[in-house]
């Protein structure tokens, strides 16, 4: 009974999150919510590899950038429809993630953190590089046009894009939930907790880690695609290494190894900088830092762990929510 009611509450909540903003929000607010959806997917990607599998990545901004540029290039150069760019970005990011994962994950621990950080630092430079300028637009970047709602739906472009992104995110969130609560998810957590024992249980560490890196790059890449469409513009400076750190912060604040935590983390990284800005125009960075520290004290296991206590079926420890 409790499980049933818990699931019902969740479904109603998700429906409300999909529909309510369409009616109560201005175009700019809808844009912000679309960015929350993108960030949530990006943070979920970081969470798969860092939260669940224990491989610290400080470079996922690179995959976000690749996803964004794949979308921008496909829409601008080839006039392809926006929706067709998402699967392409997913496949390319998964491929790049897999290839980078092969050598990077053998490093492990702090060296992996540094290597991924170096990747994040390199990406903006590569995007500006002369050789690729024909594709990337160099420092100018690429502008794209926001798509209209299809099938004559009575929605404006902002409303439609929010709904579209939300639907994509729901599918990807459910997939991630399935993944972490099954055979593969247990293996990911086993590797994080006790790699020697995981190996003795027949888990091929190198194989599983590289595939996790690929899956996580895929999630963050799709997030980048959505963000590019929402912003209608990509340029190298939007993807500085600070972005990677921001995604990492989102994962920790929302809750490491928590699916719902990705949503809370995304809300944090989208709205807290604005709030900090309103509090103090002179030192928004300091205010942001202060709020971050407060969150770490109030919710040491992430916002998700606080929310879990209030949830109708709060006692179901067996599942990763």
């Amino acid at each position, binding site marked *: 009974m409790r499980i049933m009611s818990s699931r019902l509450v969740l479904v109603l909540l998700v429906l409300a999150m999909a529909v309510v903003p369409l009616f109560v929000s201005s175009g700019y607010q809808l844009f912000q919510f679309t960015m929350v959806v993108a960030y949530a997917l990006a943070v979920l990607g970081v969470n798969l590899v860092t939260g669940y599998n224990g491989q610290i990545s400080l470079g996922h901004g690179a995959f976000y950038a690749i996803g964004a540029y794949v979308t921008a290039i496909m829409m601008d150069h080839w006039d392809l429809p926006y929706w067709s760019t998402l699967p392409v970005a997913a496949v390319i990011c998964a491929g790049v993630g897999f290839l980078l994962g092969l050598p990077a994950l053998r490093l492990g621990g702090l060296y992996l953190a540094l290597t991924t950080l170096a990747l994040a630092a390199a990406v903006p430079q590569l995007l500006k590089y002369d050789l690729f300028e024909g594709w990337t637009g160099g420092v100018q970047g690429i502008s794209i046009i926001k798509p209209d709602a299809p099938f004559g739906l009575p929605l404006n472009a902002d409303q439609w894009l929010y709904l579209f992104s939300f639907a994509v995110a729901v599918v990807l969130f459910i997939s991630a939930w*399935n993944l972490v609560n099954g055979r*593969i998810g*247990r293996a990911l957590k086993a590797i994080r907790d006790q790699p020697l024992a995981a190996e003795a249980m*027949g888990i091929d560490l190198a194989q599983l880690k590289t595939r996790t890196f690929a899956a996580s790059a895929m999630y963050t890449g799709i997030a980048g695609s959505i963000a590019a469409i929402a912003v209608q513009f990509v340029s190298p400076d939007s993807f500085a290494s600070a972005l990677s750190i921001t995604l990492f912060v989102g994962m920790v604040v929302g809750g490491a190894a928590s699916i719902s935590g990705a949503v809370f983390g995304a809300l944090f990284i989208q709205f807290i900088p604005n709030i900090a800005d309103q509090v103090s125009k002179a030192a928004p960075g300091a205010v942001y830092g202060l709020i971050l520290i407060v969150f770490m004290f109030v919710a040491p296991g992430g916002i998700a762990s606080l929310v879990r206590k209030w949830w109708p079926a709060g006692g179901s420890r067996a599942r990763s929510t």
Partner: protein
Amino acid sequence: MRVADVEMHFGGIVALAGVSFEVGRRQICGLIGPNGSGKTTMFNCISGFYRHSRGDIVFDGTSLTGMARHRMIDLGIGRTFQNVALFRSMTVRDNMLVGAHHLGRTGFIANALRLGRATAEEAAARRRGAEILALLELEEVADEVVSALPFGTRKRVELARALISEPKLLLLDEPAGGLTHGEVDELGALILKLRQSFDMSILLVEHHMSLVMSVSDKVVALEFGRKIADGTPDEVRNEPEVIRAYLGEGDDEHA
């Protein structure tokens, strides 16, 4: 399983100086010896955690020498760890289910999309898991996180994790370590019961003499990396070398 002339060095230290013995099908073999005699080293050579420098270990006709660690369990070699190596943030049930990982075949996509193959595999593992939890009296704590449980319970969780992997040979490293007297007696009965119901061989590395002597079909004794006795518990107990080695150590608590 046949261990032939296995040698292992750590720098200048010779931990195993050419040890040979065999474990038959459905046999319980005790491996005893004073501290530092090479029991754990032998155990780790068999399970692939150490690489022996000479000799060979053959299991069911397959040489284990140089084999990748994650492939051992596929051959039917299950193990526990001397100091308990569980997945601390996971529940008892999930810890156990990791032991069934190698029996599954589904990957990322099948699991993310809950394809029929993945759900069938999961249901089968959970069904067998429920039986093992009942057998080891772990049902009540099945959904507790392991890090909060007492040591003796955690050892049983390790056993559950090894059992669900359907081993043909179960390697137990000091399963009685840290247990109370009563628990040790129960463990002896449990080991005999498990051999019966899971149809497997067991290599029992143990300091605790009375436990080894009461459950083993055969016993191998080591001292300073050499084998000093090999036979039935009675034969080994009366072997002068063994008496000397154990008296020399002066701990009658285990004798």
